[in-house]
């Protein structure tokens, strides 16, 4: 069953056309990698999905058109975003960050700290005082506390130490395996993406240029469109 569907999605920043025609589907319980070089429209696509920028074309979640909805209503429908650059609520503690985002559902503070034990050790610490990796874990935990049906991770491992990246990837794999969450992943690590993703969608200059099973993404295609 298709959860998220984008068809011919277009978006612009002023006079600049950022998305020309993005086609993308994420099924229930499916993990989809959204790939492409820098500046090809990956983050813009995420912003359009979350209604943070205006867009045109088809954009629906579980059959419901998202275009008439403001950003917070889209989140309430079940799209949890882990934005690029983390952006935790710096003045709040770890616990407060989680409580502020909490919505009823299976994901609770206890479940988030079981997924990220480091957060459990730092519940009373201000988010601003956490390391980059811990802030990333908090950003994921905060998104999970909204009890989403679809989790979007935009460059979740960017700029992190290798050992922390491993922890994050292990958590994403656990989310797929145990929670059965639908996930849309943006990352540059082809090897790790291949380990968790079912399908891949590649963007080139604001357009979907390739869609297929992750297993079908050959090194040549990776080299051609993603540069890895």
């Amino acid at each position, binding site marked *: 069953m298709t959860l998220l569907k984008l068809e011919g999605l277009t978006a612009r920043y002023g006079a600049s056309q950022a998305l020309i025609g993005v086609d993308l589907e994420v099924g229930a319980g499916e993990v989809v990698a959204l790939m492409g070089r820098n500046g090809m429209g990956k983050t813009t696509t995420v912003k359009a999905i979350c209604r*943070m920028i205006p867009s045109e074309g088809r954009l629906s979640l579980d059959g419901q058109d998202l275009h008439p909805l403001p*950003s*917070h*209503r889209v989140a309430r429908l079940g799209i949890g975003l882990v934005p690029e650059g983390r*952006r935790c*609520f710096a*003045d709040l503690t770890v616990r407060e*960050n989680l*409580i*502020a985002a909490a919505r009823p559902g299976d994901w609770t503070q206890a479940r988030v700290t079981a997924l990220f034990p480091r957060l459990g050790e730092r519940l009373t610490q201000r988010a601003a005082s956490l390391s980059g990796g811990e802030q990333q874990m908090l950003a994921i935990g905060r998104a999970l506390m909204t009890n989403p049906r679809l989790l979007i991770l935009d460059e979740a491992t960017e700029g992190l130490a290798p050992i922390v990246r491993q922890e994050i990837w292990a958590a994403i794999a656990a989310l797929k395996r145990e929670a059965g969450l639908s996930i849309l992943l943006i990352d540059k690590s082809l090897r790790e993406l291949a380990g968790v993703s079912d399908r891949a969608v590649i963007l080139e200059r604001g357009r979907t240029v390739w869609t297929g099973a992750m297993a079908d993404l050959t090194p040549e295609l990776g080299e051609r469109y993603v540069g890895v």
Partner: protein
Amino acid sequence: MIPERLLTFAVPAALLAVALWALAVEEPFTITLATRAAILALAAVGLNIALGIGGLVSLGHAVFFGLGGYAMGILAHHAQTYTTLDLGPLSISGSKSMPLIWLVAVAVSALAALLIGLLSLRTSGVYFIMITLAFGQMFYYFAISWSSYGGEDGLSIYVRNGFPGLNTLDPIQFFGLCFALLCLALLLYARLRAAPFGLALNAARQVPARVETVGLSPLRLKLLAFVISGAITGLAGALFADLNRFVSPTMFSWQLSGELIVLIVIGGVGRLTGPVIGACLFVLLEHWLGALTEFWHIWLGVILLGIVLFARGGIVGLLTGKAGPHV
């Protein structure tokens, strides 16, 4: 350094102790000063919800203080003149009952905060400050021209309004009433700040766009905070009018809005006991320095300057050694 938790109990206890000491040594004027501090603190606790948690620098909170005052003044005026208040087809008699007056003051202030908030919260920063200031000035000049209720001269109430089971003319009993309401407001503030609503409001102050991504509307959060804030400040206005047995357009003045902000900044923005400390210091300076010179505001300005430059967390920050609640 003093733990902030200790201040939570020590500061209101000190205010209560001053009033009880004044009762013991038969200094009713000191009880009145303590009452004035408690009422100003109550108004500032209200503003602290919008300013301290939500980051809303409202230069129009005197609107709610004044509306609370006029709610009391108008109801008491009609009660003491045995006339009715005609609102189109509705004809309402006046009242000398504090609980009823408080209810009206809170309802009117909350409604005004809702309408003002709906318009002003679509802006931010300096524009929000200017819009709230403009609303304050509108109400101020309206009150000046409202001749039915005294216009520029204001309204005098002959006898303080009553509260069931209490003699409100007795300074200590009226103080007790104001002090109890202040404690309730402090409790509400503490609960709100720690509740998901307060945390989300705090988050909306920091990064509004990120709050939207967790399914919350920053506008609605701020609007609700503004309404609660205005309602509490309105209640304080009704008590202030009862304390002085007088209401006038100055209750709507932008200077009063500014003074409420100053109280909070001196005590500590977003700190639970900050408004209480700020209000007590303000009343002390007003009384002591005011007796020495009519330019006592200069010294208040010097203190404010010192705190802004050298103590970012206000007096609470100085006492606790923490510039913010979590630092």
